[in-house]
């Protein structure tokens, strides 16, 4: 059994789920796979209330998607028997893929959000046993104009604010939407984010935002990695400003923020839409400590040459005092940093394509 200082890293891949654990974030023990031959596009670790529940968004190409959870650190898993994430008979839709599993804030115990394909947001109030479709977004008048990114039409990011009833959702393609009333109603919030691939490059919505992350200290502050373009907002998404200057490329999928400090974020640039590789095959994690004014890249401990992409949820931070940074590649390598992304070491290699990672310090 893990000791009180154990860090757990859940690794969702194209062919199953692996788990890694470490007491020092240097030496890792890898176990798996669970759900062999199922895609795991989303994982979640809920440590609220002193208990740990792991979530996996599973996708069998034969038998469809489902959400599963484990209360024994991944030894055994259960599917919600009646609930889970299921459209109703009158919705005329079937769940295709669970892209995001997001436990809410500490003072909302039991609340878990999910973002799914087709574009939909779901909310559970019973620790992920039963999810209710968010009608405000499902019935949104823009729905007919939302498109599909290369990976499918999905709400891939759900960010409930710990401060109030604000919730941000990002979808590909559709852009960023914000609710000020806990999800009852939604408005697009994309001013300043370019949609260069559309006839009007500055539409109200339709942007292909790849990932959004919220500042841990200032919940009005957001960071976004777009389909070309890296942006920040200091007004809850009312307006966005480019912070791409200083990066080797403005394309990528990852956006991470520091769990305790304001203004620190990480991205993992890829060269371009048409060349989805690290710039010059040189994999680096880039970090800003000043809200995007300046960036510093680090590849210490990473391979000299790497031509695989890092997908939007294949990167995460843990919540330790000095947070760890983790990511996996489509080449099946997983890297961990115990020093906020300055140096990395390999946790696993030659796994199937890494689709999702989440890490947390878990009680023993």
């Amino acid at each position: 059994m893990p000791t009180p200082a154990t860090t757990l890293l859940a690794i969702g891949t194209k062919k199953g789920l692996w788990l890694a654990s470490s007491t020092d974030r240097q030496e890792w023990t890898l176990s798996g796979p669970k759900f062999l031959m199922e895609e795991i596009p989303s994982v979640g670790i809920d440590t609220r209330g002193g208990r740990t529940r792991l979530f996996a968004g599973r996708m069998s190409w034969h038998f469809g998607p489902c959400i599963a959870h484990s209360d024994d650190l991944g030894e055994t898993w259960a599917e919600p028997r009646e609930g889970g994430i299921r459209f109703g008979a009158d919705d005329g839709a079937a769940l295709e893929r669970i892209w995001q599993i997001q436990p809410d804030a500490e003072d909302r115990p039991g609340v878990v959000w999910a973002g799914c394909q087709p574009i939909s947001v779901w909310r559970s109030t019973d620790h992920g046993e039963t999810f209710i479709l968010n009608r405000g977004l499902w019935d949104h008048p823009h729905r007919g104009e939302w498109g599909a990114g290369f990976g499918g039409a999905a709400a891939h990011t759900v960010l409930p604010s710990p401060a109030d009833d604000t919730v941000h959702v990002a979808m590909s393609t559709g852009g960023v939407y914000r609710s000020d009333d806990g999800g009852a109603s939604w408005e697009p919030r994309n001013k300043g984010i370019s949609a260069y691939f559309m006839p009007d490059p500055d539409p109200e919505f339709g942007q292909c935002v790849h990932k959004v992350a919220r500042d841990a200290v200032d919940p009005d502050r957001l960071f976004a990695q777009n389909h070309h373009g890296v942006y920040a907002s200091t007004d809850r998404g009312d307006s966005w400003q480019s912070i791409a200057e200083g990066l080797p490329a403005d394309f990528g999928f990852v956006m991470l923020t520091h769990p305790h400090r304001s203004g620190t974020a990480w991205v993992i640039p890829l060269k371009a839409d048409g060349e989805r590789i690290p710039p010059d095959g040189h994999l680096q994690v880039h970090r800003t400590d000043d809200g995007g004014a300046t960036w510093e890249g680090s590849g210490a401990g990473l391979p000299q040459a790497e031509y695989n992409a890092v997908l939007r949820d294949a990167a995460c931070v843990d919540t330790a005092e000095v947070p760890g940074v983790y990511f996996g590649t489509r080449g099946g390598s997983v890297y961990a940093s115990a020093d906020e992304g300055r140096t990395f070491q390999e946790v696993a290699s030659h796994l199937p394509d890494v689709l999702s990672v989440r890490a947390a310090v878990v009680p023993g």
Partner: protein
Amino acid sequence: MPETSPLPSVIVLIPTLLRQYVDGRSAIRLSIADDADVASVLDGLGEGRPLLDQRIREETGVLRRYVNIYVDGEDVRRLDGLATAVPAGATIMIMQSVAGG
């Protein structure tokens, strides 16, 4: 529908990957009505086993794209789909299709 009823019945063959939902069994005998079709057989199979039903059919009731069902060796997609009639004594085979990589 009770699995031991004296009514006409069919045998449903369960693929290995779905046996976790039926206590590891490879075959289940189900009673059927005179006018049974594949959908009603699946309804009976899913009674008390919602997770099994979810693996075979989408929420809309549609057969999952990569799940095949055969009635006495005939692919129901080449017949009337889930409305294909199921005679008493039939063998219903549920199979995952050849897909993936």
